[in-house]
């Protein structure tokens, strides 16, 4: 770790020397970090949350948004519970933040590990991640309806749905599809979203509900076909991604007759007991991150929903999301303590 600090300082000194620093308008922030900030990632290296956290780290260094460095640390044990317990246990230590995914809600419900988002201090929602129903491009199904009709016709457990992890977002969506369309899949859990996309290209599974960023490469190469997006409106990005389609051309699943609406939180929390000044510092930091070209580019590549929230709005959103997950998981029979 010490090597890393020294190097980060070195990099900053270097940036400063070349006059690359962008001077932020002097908002009279009452608090700022006095030592490097730990950026906990409750997931493995290479996944969606990890990519986003490392992008943020890069952006913060490149644009000199913070005097201290930001150090991403993966704590993925126990479906992310390790990371959450670490932040929960660091009460009164403001130099620690965590990036979240849906496991904020699903892990405690599914495993019974004792933590709840209310025990952490919410900072801000950075974006919402979409889910898309994908099939192999060589399969005959052109629309979600055609595909689900075929699944229904084949009978229960004949079609294989691949997803990341067990009793997490991908399986929750799968159960929701099953309920809405009256079908039954064989759900096969894999370790990461990248694996799932590859398994679909190799035709070992029949469909997936990958996030856009996890499957975009295979989509562009013409190996996967996007059937519908699990949201109530289409994705806004109109620039062509494949030769013929943009993200905006993908219909919503509601249009296709499966009224499912599910987005995943990409948000930031800090430790319990953080003061308002400390939270404000981080909110401001992430506002600045959102203004950088690298962030905007990343958002567009991954077709993220760019909602930003902080303060009471964010807390209210979290409350609703928790209720939603509890309901979905209870219905699916995924609760550890029913």
């Amino acid at each position: 770790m010490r090597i890393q600090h020294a190097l980060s300082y070195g990099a900053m000194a270097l940036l400063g020397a070349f006059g690359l620093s962008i001077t932020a308008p002097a908002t009279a922030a009452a608090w700022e970090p006095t030592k490097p900030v730990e950026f906990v990632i409750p997931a493995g290296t290479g996944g969606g949350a990890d990519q986003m956290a490392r992008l943020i780290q890069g952006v913060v260094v490149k644009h000199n948004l913070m005097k201290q460095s930001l150090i991403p640390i993966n704590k993925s044990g126990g479906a992310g519970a390790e990371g959450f317990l670490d932040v929960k246990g660091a009460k009164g230590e403001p130099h620690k933040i965590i990036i979240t995914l849906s496991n904020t809600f699903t892990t405690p419900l599914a495993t019974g590990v004792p933590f709840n988002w209310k025990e952490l201090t919410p900072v801000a929602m950075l974006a919402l991640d979409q889910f898309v129903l994908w099939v192999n491009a060589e399969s005959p199904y052109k629309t979600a309806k055609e595909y689900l009709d075929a699944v229904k016709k084949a009978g229960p457990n004949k079609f294989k749905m691949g997803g990341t992890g067990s009793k997490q977002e991908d399986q929750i969506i799968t159960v929701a599809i099953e309920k809405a369309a009256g079908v039954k899949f064989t759900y096969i859990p894999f370790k990461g979203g990248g694996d799932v996309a590859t398994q679909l290209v190799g035709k070992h599974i029949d469909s997936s509900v990958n996030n856009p960023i996890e499957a975009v490469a295979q989509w562009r190469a013409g190996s996967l076909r996007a059937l519908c997006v699990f949201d109530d409106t289409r994705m806004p990005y109109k620039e062509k991604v494949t030769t013929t389609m943009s993200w905006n051309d993908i219909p919503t699943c509601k249009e296709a007759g499966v009224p499912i609406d599910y987005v995943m939180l990409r948000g930031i929390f800090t430790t319990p007991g953080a003061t308002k000044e400390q939270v404000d510092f981080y909110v401001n930091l992430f506002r600045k991150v959102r203004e950088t070209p690298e962030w905007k580019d990343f958002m567009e590549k991954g077709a993220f929903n760019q909602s930003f929230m902080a303060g009471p709005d964010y807390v209210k959103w979290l409350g609703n999301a928790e209720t939603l997950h509890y309901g979905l998981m209870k219905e699916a029979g995924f609760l550890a303590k029913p």
Partner: protein
Amino acid sequence: MFEDLNALFHGFSVALTPLNLLLMFVGVTLGVIIGVLPGLGGANGIAILLPLTFTMPPTSAIIMLSCIYWGALFGGAITSILFNIPGEPWSVATTFDGYPMAQAGRAGEALTGAFTSSFIGAFFAVVMITFLAPLVARFALQFGPPEFFAVYFLTFCSFIGMGKEPPFKIMAAMMLGFALAAVGIDTVTGQLRLIFGWYELMRGFDFLIAVIGLFGIGEILLSMEEGLTFSGKSAKIDPKIVIQTWKKLPQYWVTSLRSCLIGCWLGITPGGATPASFMSYGVAKRMSKDGAKFGTGQLEGVVAPETAAHAAGTSALLPMLALGIPGSPTAAVLLGGLLIWGLQPGPLLFIEQKDFVWGLIASMYLGNIAGLIIVITCVPLFAAILRIPFSIIAPVIIVICAIGAYTVHNAMLDIWFMLLFGVLGYVFKKLAYPLAPLVLALVLGDRAEDAFRQSMLMSQGDVRIFFSKGLVGGIMGLSLLLLFWPVMAKTLARMRSPKAA
């Protein structure tokens, strides 16, 4: 083919700028240091240095980062051979013969053999990437859960029955490994298991912590008992040892070639460098005429795992570039880097980012040559470390081991686990139980379990899925053949002997 060659030469012109050459040497040197420190693996090293590269052009950035990766692959062998502490998971198999060689005063020979084989393995893989990338990428897509299970099964089968220990001791060690591998979250059901309400256990037992403890600390405990000396102390330091070893290496060309193929195969699929090194060692022991002497300090036993590990480590980058799936944790971090530099890995990268891809491939050639030069010139220096008195070096090793164990998860508890594993390693050695099966089961246990249960879900519980297609059936057949070969060989010999009599 000619188009590829043209593209490659263009790549060399991209890679061969003074800045890139400098970055290459910096990267390899950093990588060797990272490889030497157990725990601070290539993936961590690259993740730490990633932000530094955001201000560089993408091509220079990936050249430096991939050179760190080559360096780490080279560096992993050093501590395995000198102290019986694998710096990286894929160098565990290198300890089996490398450490006995060092104890017999042949550390220089073992190091030279390891570095040269690493280079050969990597070079083979790079040539394959250069000319066969699209073809090989398609082969990787053939691998679903049943195929993965078959590959892990093959690794176990090629390894069983190779120790001198009684089969029951091997089984006991292996089962303990499987039990330890099962601790933590279960991917298939999403439940925590075997943690007994103790949430610190939910991250499971990391393979590296076990290895650092079992091998590193265990060895130090043994040495302390035996009178505070390293038996490798008599190592002669002679620069000529490099040339002498090179003279010996060509006779192992069959082993090298086989290890290259095993390594490339597992790197692409992506089984990874660790199973590749184990499988290659196991197969070499079966096939070699000196197989019975493996484990006592055979140069061939160093050549086989090192060649395969480096071939796998290198070819693991291919699925990342061509398909956007990382073949190793390090590749996963590099993949994140690609996205940040504004490059989208995947099938179109070869078409849209020619400069980048061919610059990277050219840097694989150059980086490995740079790496070989650096490590080979340092062989006498590394070997000289063994001359340091045990009472000075042992505390240093323990400190490095502790740092390594802590780094894996940034958890203090892991240091205690490391010490516990150290005691376990000592007890195992005293009771003549083999460590290798335990380690193998720990590293591949949960992956094999996941693949098996995913396959069972796919087939609704029908075991015939493992023989349903040509590829998976072939690998399973080969595994069973390897497993029962000793029995079959005996029966065949018995059938022939009456005639001879």
